């Protein structure tokens, strides 16, 4: 086991100091085409550089919220359904506290409490969540325009953008989200406790 440990350390140093310009050792696998990478790559980073072409507005999103079945689970007004609350009101907690909308994930302390529009550190987080995970049972069927529209609808209803603002690859990353204060993910190092000094 000690041998196994030693190897990765060398490799990490390799990344830091010399990079990995070597040629492949095994030559197994093939090179994907640019089109394959484009089609598969649905990751949207904080900078939003992978956001696809397309556009949408809150008004379009409001219609989609009903026609795509969102209201059935999240409530007609974005609350009161079985699924998490999406549109806050004066009664919705904005600070960490009991979660609005009960899901097992939230009950188990896995999901952060609160409204996604209040908690997501970037608007792209909402875009990505809708794009991957909604609607339930028809995941991956929304067009980019529809995802922009639904995101715009939730941003507008939570007072984060104006009703007539167009959301697209340029405007979405510029939306000022209320929660910019999130913990940086921990730096991981081999052979280090998960949190020094705990308990």
């Amino acid at each position, binding site marked *: 086991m000690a041998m196994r440990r030693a190897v990765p350390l060398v490799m990490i140093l390799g990344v830091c100091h010399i990079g990995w310009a070597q040629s492949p050792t095994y030559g197994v696998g093939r090179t994907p085409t640019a089109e394959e990478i484009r089609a598969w790559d649905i990751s949207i980073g904080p900078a939003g550089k992978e956001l696809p072409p397309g556009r949408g507005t809150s008004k379009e999103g409001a219609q989609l919220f009903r026609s795509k079945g969102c209201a059935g689970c999240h409530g007609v007004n974005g609350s009161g359904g079985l699924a998490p609350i999406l549109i806050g009101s004066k009664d919705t907690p904005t600070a960490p506290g009991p979660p609005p909308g009960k899901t*097992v994930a939230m009950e188990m302390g896995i999901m952060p409490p609160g409204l996604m529009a209040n908690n997501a550190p970037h608007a792209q987080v909402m875009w990505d969540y809708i794009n991957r995970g909604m609607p339930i049972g028809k995941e991956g069927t929304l067009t980019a325009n529809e995802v922009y529209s639904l995101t715009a609808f939730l941003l507008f209803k939570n007072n984060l953008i104006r009703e007539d603002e167009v959301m697209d690859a340029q405007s979405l990353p510029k939306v000022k989200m209320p929660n910019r204060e999130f913990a940086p993910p921990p730096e991981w190092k081999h052979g280090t406790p998960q949190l020094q000094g705990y308990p």
Partner: protein
Amino acid sequence: MESKKPNRRGFLKDGAALAGLAAGARSASGQTVADLRAKGTSKELIAYGERSRFVTSVRKPTAGRDSPDAFGLAFHVLSPLQDSVGIITPSSLHYVATHRGSFIPDIDPREHRLMIHGMVDRPLIFTVEELKRLPYVSRIHFLECIGNRARPEHKTVQESHGLTSCAEWTGVPLSLLLKEAGVQSGASWIVAEGAEEIKGASSIPLAKALDDCLVCYGMNGEPVRPQQGFPLRLIVPGFEGIYQTKYLRRIKVVDQFYWTYNDYGHLRKDPKEAALGQQIGPKSVITFPSGEQKLSGPGFYQITGLAWSGGGAVRKVEISIDGGRTWKDAELRSPAYPMAHTRFALNWRWDGKECMLLSRCIDELGTAQPSRAEAAKYWNKPLTKDYNVPGADNTIQLWKVAADGSVTNGNA
């Protein structure tokens, strides 16, 4: 005795048939050699063995909730740790936890692909067969869901700790694949993504990806089970369960934490709390005697259980039979592999008096498993029975043995 009858009848019938077989004749029950051969190809006899019908240990859904839930989405199935022996969880009894995957994708492995791209010199696509051509390793690792946490209402160790299991995982080191692709300087994270309907994805530190992560196609000597990510699962040893990306289809090398689908669940304002949602701390639990088991009377027993740590190998397990006033070193009864369940035991003569049993794990980093009181004190919170420890809960579990030998949750 009633339950034995069918078996005895079956034996007599088969015996008669075999006697007939030896004589080359038709048996009294009318079975021919062809009949027996047909029976011989049945699943349980030859093709895929079954356990004894007297062994009834099974998984069960998380207490008080349906799995799948009302949406058919959240699905948490607990492993029966109270019946476990050794350190390997049979694949059929391995815990399952998912929020968006009780519908298991029916993936044809011949159609499945793994793409590695992003900040690499040579993006690559592999078939499962191509991955199997590459040098592989087998390692024993535990997995644990962050939902595995102490609650006073838990009655059994299955309920309190059943969201952890341990298996032998076989696959290609991710470091090898990343080296083939050529990671570019400036890269610091990877995003691992599954092929299921929501394409669940997590950000993982590049340092971890290059250290010990495995792209696995094997689990306990056979292909990874569908509930566990068939045909490919990324194993991130020692990290919380959600990072162990099932149905792995894509790895993107990036230069920052990506706040992708599963990452949102790790959103915390306190960096200390965020840190406890990644690598699992040292943890242990006594599996015998544990909740709802019963000691038949005073005398000799083995206190036994499982210990594990996301930080490395288990170095030591201590057991207290007096509620934590005094501690004895348990024996490690299995190899102590890094990031693996480790079996411990202590020979014990029960005097028939009420007592409180608990275990404490110390890992190779010297980190000790905290008590609930220590955790509450760290977070400056009052210790109540309902106190929910932030991040992964690795606190000490207590089991109370009553004078009549019955065992209950000592945290209740």
